[in-house]
């Protein structure tokens, strides 16, 4: 048993974090709320150049041919920075499904984020080529997730392949939730250290400490389930779906708990759109109900254990 990442995997995570710290700042994410494409101009190309987008795709098609354990920390970073790009949909879900790199993929059961900039779209109905569909836009509470209903003729996709792809997508979202929770915690810890009331930092009050400690505990015990699910995906473990569902259930809970606590501990400043916290709050709310919510995933676990 060796439950840790390799130096190479950590280096790829660090490189991704460095890139996103520069190229996907809160200002970039805000810009994606209002610009024409709803994404960060140039970011996708940079992620692609790093190999992140095609990480799971076969080398012969321009991918890196690596496995999900190599990808999961990268996806956690994309959550930490609230990256407004179809990275889970392309890198985790779609690239192995279409069998090659270089295709931008959007995917969701119903409301599909970033469908307007994808080459291929997957929904509950099956596979669509972008060229042949009509997209009906819907605004999301997270302005950096442009949603579309997809109308057109779908082609059926092989069942086993879709289930495996779904599990990869769910695990990717769970990893993003961990990244988001960590970011919100960090923002809040920084804030309560500085913010003073009654002559002391508000972070010195036990009520505030205990809120944040509870959120930190939730993250501490969600992450290992996400990493274990990633390993199960990579190893094609027979219980992968159960492991993935445990991960999504705990990661959603950690992100939502952290979101509540982060807002509460910020007070009124957190309740504005001028302050950055809302970018992460809203992403976590949206992701918690995407790819099956926690209750849906506990249902999958329930059928396995009861």
């Amino acid at each position: 048993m060796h439950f840790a990442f390799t130096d190479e995997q950590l280096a790829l995570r660090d490189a991704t974090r460095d890139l996103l710290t520069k190229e996907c700042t809160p200002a970039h994410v805000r810009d994606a709320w209002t610009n024409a494409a709803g994404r960060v101009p140039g970011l996708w190309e940079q992620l692609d150049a790093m190999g992140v987008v095609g990480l799971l795709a076969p080398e012969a098609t321009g991918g890196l041919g690596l496995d999900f354990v190599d990808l999961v920390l990268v996806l956690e970073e994309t959550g930490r920075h609230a990256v407004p790009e179809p990275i889970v949909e392309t890198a985790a879900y779609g690239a192995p499904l279409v069998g090659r790199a270089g295709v931008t993929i959007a995917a969701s059961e119903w409301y599909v984020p970033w469908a307007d900039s994808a080459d291929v779209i997957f929904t509950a109905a099956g596979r669509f080529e972008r060229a042949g569909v009509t997209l009906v836009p819907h605004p999301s509470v997270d302005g950096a997730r442009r949603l579309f209903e997809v109308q057109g003729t779908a082609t059926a996709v092989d069942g086993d392949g879709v289930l495996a792809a779904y599990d990869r997508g769910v695990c990717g979202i769970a990893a993003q939730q961990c990244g988001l929770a960590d970011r919100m915690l960090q923002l809040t810890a920084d804030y309560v250290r500085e913010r003073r009331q009654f002559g002391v930092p508000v972070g010195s009050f036990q009520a505030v400490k205990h809120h944040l400690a509870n959120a930190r505990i939730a993250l501490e015990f969600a992450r290992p389930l996400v990493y274990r699910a990633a390993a199960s995906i990579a190893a094609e473990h027979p219980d992968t779906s159960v492991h993935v569902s445990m991960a999504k259930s705990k990661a959603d809970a950690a992100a939502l708990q952290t979101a509540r606590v982060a807002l509460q501990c910020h007070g009124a400043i957190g309740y504005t759109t001028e302050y950055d916290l809302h970018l992460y709050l809203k992403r976590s709310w949206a992701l918690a109900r995407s790819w099956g919510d926690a209750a849906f995933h506990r249902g999958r676990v329930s059928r396995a254990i009861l």
Partner: protein
Amino acid sequence: MDLSESAAEQQFRAECRSWLEAHVPRPALPSGDTRAGFAAHLEWERTLFDARYAVVSWPREYGGREASLWEWLIFEEEYYAAGAPQRVTQNGIFLLAPTIFEFGTQEQKDYVLPKMAAGEHTWCQGWSEPNAGSDLAGIQSRATRDEAGGGWRLSGQKTWTTRGAFCTHLFGLFRSDPEAERHRGLTYFLVALDQPGITVRPVERLDGDEGFAEVFFDDVFVPDADVLGEPNEGWAVAMATTGSERGLTLRSPGRFMATARRLIELARTRTDELDETRRDRLVSAWIDAEAYRWQTFWTVTRAAQGMKSGAESSMVKVFWSELDIELHELALDLLGRHAELLDGDDAAWMKGYEFALAGPIYAGTNEIQRNVIAERVLGLPRK
């Protein structure tokens, strides 16, 4: 990342399993927190020791088998899965022993460890006092220098001492320099309880067992050889012990996995009581037990690479203590009107529930742990 068990580990697991199947006492022993039950448990400890299963991770010379951390986790999983007895020696082998390995002299190791492993000497913990619980550094029991005798004289009172009425020895903190600042001037002593000046009064716990005791010290002599670590530096030594108490060594995931499995078995026989809400709670609790297991594997991998853990043990302590309560509460809900019965096969759930309720209190209350997490993990200001 490799989440598989090696061939040697699988072999070890199989050995543990078949030995436990053949030896675990049936029916289950009476509670080890009563006088009769304690004696029965010591016999079981002797059986474990003779088969080198009492202290698997210790060096061979002290009765162990030099098991790796991974093998120790495997042993614990198998131990609790087999429904084997509680370990009445646990405060010695899981709390004091790691501290002796770290701070003890060669003489202390050679004298204390083999007798502890064999259950010949049983150890209780002398931390809390009537006016020092969570605020451990507030202890008032005194150690006064006895230069002529080459040792110290202890006076004062310890309380809530688990199994203090049955144990032969106590490890504890005493104030040896009353002039020093709170955390300084404390010394860690190893004390035999069968000597003049010591009075032990059993105290009945919430669950009705005499599992607690008050221990009174009236001018009790302890030689220098029984000081663990340096005089007046007992705080650092004690912190090593409390780290073990909160974290991995006392509460391996095998315990909670075994409880969670028994809970699922119970749920299968109580389907009338298993509504949607309880089903969802049951699944959540199962996922939490799994999360605890995998967080442990994560931590053990780091430990195997030589990385030390610090304040993380506070997160672990809050998590397992609350998980344990939830597992038992769910069982009581499923038992419905049978839950309150103290006879029959299911009575163990109420007993277990009462024990679980102590979890958020001992080893530093969960409120204190949350302060530690906020301050040392998240960097929030103390004041």
